[in-house]
């Protein structure tokens, strides 16, 4: 190589790895988590120590009691995040970016709330009527959510309208409608009618073992269903073909339009069930903020778990554990608000994204780069060529 010739080779070449063994990739992820956790707790402690004399260990015990003192609530929160991510998985597998899970869930929950509100008298007459109401709520939630999900999908399929932005906008349309209906239900006097059927409990899922028990079971069943649907059925196979290459799918004679719309319907249906759970088991009321930003967090979780339901469950648990622990810290030490948990979740995602890179790629020093010669030039004197590669 001519030493005088100017080259623009970068110091590192990025090379795609062959598949890393599973245990190694898990070790990398766990390490990333531990590093972020330590960093996060350091940030927490830096703020806590300004407001209180409690030591680090006292703060950590607050963290762990905060995360574990209400196990059913913790389980419910984990399941909710899991459900959002699972709802997004089938669509994602086709590279269809459904950013609208929030809106779809809200619309599903809204129709359930409306039914609970107006059919209260009917449902309080007998247990049978109440069961009828619950079934009706479930069916209509699923129907409305499917409708909300399928509108962008139809435009995507026929006109190639950008679904990321379309579904994103649909979230805000849904929040607006929820706000409006809340006023209508409250007869325009207040912002919302509050908890629906507080005394009659019509349309509420019954309490078995715990208030959240049935909801949790439903979500676990959905997760198992999606797992088998994606892995073992013809539909699941078609989804993965469309996701890998839509042209291949077309060439082998698959009806891609039908597959996309059918899959989005499934995604919407799961969102409908989540909406139903919000109305019948968790909140019994609705607001534009009912599901927070779980739809977005679900996207992150589903992506980072590489669509595997088991890993999704794992990441969901970690996230919820972290955020309930930190929210306890921020309420005990009066940190103002609970947003420190968002900061930590953001950091956690960044670190997982970085380690995804190291799982997929490896870096190789580039002996032909100017920087390399500058740094290692003296060492290489006499040894022409070096051992790196372009």
């Amino acid at each position: 190589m001519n030493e005088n010739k100017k080259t623009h080779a970068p110091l590192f070449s990025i090379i795609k790895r062959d598949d890393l063994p599973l245990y190694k990739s898990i070790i990398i992820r766990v390490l990333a988590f531990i590093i972020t956790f330590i960093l996060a707790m350091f940030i927490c402690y830096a703020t806590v120590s300004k407001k209180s004399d409690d030591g680090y260990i006292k703060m950590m015990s607050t963290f762990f009691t905060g995360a574990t003192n209400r196990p059913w609530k913790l389980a419910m929160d984990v399941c909710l995040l899991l459900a959002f991510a699972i709802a997004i998985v089938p669509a994602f597998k086709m590279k269809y970016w459904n950013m609208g899970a929030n809106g779809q869930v809200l619309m599903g929950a809204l129709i359930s709330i409306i039914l609970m509100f107006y059919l209260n008298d009917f449902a309080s007459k007998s247990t049978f009527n109440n069961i009828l109401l619950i079934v009706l709520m479930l069916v209509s939630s699923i129907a409305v959510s499917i409708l909300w999900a399928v509108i962008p999908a139809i435009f995507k399929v026929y006109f190639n309208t950008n679904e990321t932005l379309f579904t994103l906008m649909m979230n805000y349309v849904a929040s607006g409608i929820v706000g409006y209906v809340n006023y209508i239900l409250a007869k325009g006097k207040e912002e919302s009618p509050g908890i629906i059927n507080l005394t009659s409990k019509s349309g509420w899922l019954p309490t078995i073992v715990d208030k959240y028990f049935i909801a949790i079971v439903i979500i676990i069943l959905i997760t198992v269903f999606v797992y088998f649907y994606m892995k073992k059925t013809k539909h699941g196979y078609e989804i993965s073909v469309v996701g890998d290459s839509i042209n291949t799918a077309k060439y082998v004679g698959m009806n891609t339009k039908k597959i996309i719309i059918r899959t989005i319907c499934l995604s919407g249906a799961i969102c409908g069930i989540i909406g139903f759970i919000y109305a019948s088991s968790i909140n019994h009321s609705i607001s534009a903020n009912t599901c927070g930003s779980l739809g977005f967090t679900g996207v992150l979780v589903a992506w980072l778990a590489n669509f595997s339901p088991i890993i999704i469950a794992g990441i969901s648990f970690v996230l919820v554990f972290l955020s309930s622990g930190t929210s306890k810290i921020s309420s005990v030490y009066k940190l103002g608000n609970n947003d420190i948990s968002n900061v930590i979740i953001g950091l956690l995602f960044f670190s997982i994204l970085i380690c995804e890179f190291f799982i997929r790629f490896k870096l190789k020093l580039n002996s032909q780069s100017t920087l390399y010669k500058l740094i290692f030039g003296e060492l290489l004197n006499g040894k022409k060529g070096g051992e790196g590669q372009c």
Partner: protein
Amino acid sequence: MLVAFLAAAISMGIVYLYGAIGETLIEKVGNLNLGIPGIMCLGALGGVIGVNTYISLFTVENIMGWLLIIFSMTFAFLFAALGGLIYAILTVSFQANQNVTGLALTTFGVGCMKFIGSNIDQSNLTTASRSISKLFVNYDKLGWFGEIFLSHGILVYLSIIIAVLVTLFLNKTRRGLFLRSIGESPQTADAQGINVTLYKYMAILVGSGIAGLGGLYYVMDRTGGTTFVEASIEAFGWMSVALVIFSMWKPGISIIGSIVFGGLYILRSFINITPAQIKLFEIVPYLVTIIVLIVTSILNKKNSQPPASLGVNYYREER
């Protein structure tokens, strides 16, 4: 009434305009940055820290307006660009998925603003805001013209200048052409000898910085320093992303678009409607965006489409 409405529409729209110019610049190199809401929050946080820094260095009395603006703008730009840097490192160098990185950045940015914001001193913001939010004196002597166009702070005029400059840069300069070509096909641009990574980094950093000024503008000018931690900058960020589509990736059109969006947002305080109807009014900008999205995709015209490689990372060794 109409005069006040138009003045308020411009004043509100500028928040979206900053976000939209920044996002356009980023999308033009093929990166869909869904972290804009978080970046705008970081900008707001930086701006407030800048104001506090100025006040701690000098005094609250006799504020030198121009110096305060330089301080707050520099901090806002740097904080937002730092958010952009995280995004750029992850998506450009580390090949992370753009949507996922963007959403993570939004979570992080909003969290940072609210968490750090609630722990810093906000007592001087209203005082400081007074020296930012009006550029011209005696503008009311010019009647309706003065009221609509001259009653704003310097950040309003700056945003329009930036929009024009960015339009000129993208359409009339060689570097602008290079930048756009990366958004259409990074492979081709790379083969032409254009430094794709460098352009992507620059566009993302500068774009994020500009978007961050939107957060600063909202806190220090639009609300007069009264709303900071509770500010719904996140929602405005999403509106900015919508405005980019609405203006079909043209910063010049987004000036008009921002006024339309601003008008739709503040319309509810100018007409006599019930709180319930206000909620319905809030969805109008989003509906309009959806319609634009649908119409542009149906018409499928060449010059109203998103950059062809939008959302796809460029990895040189992949064919």
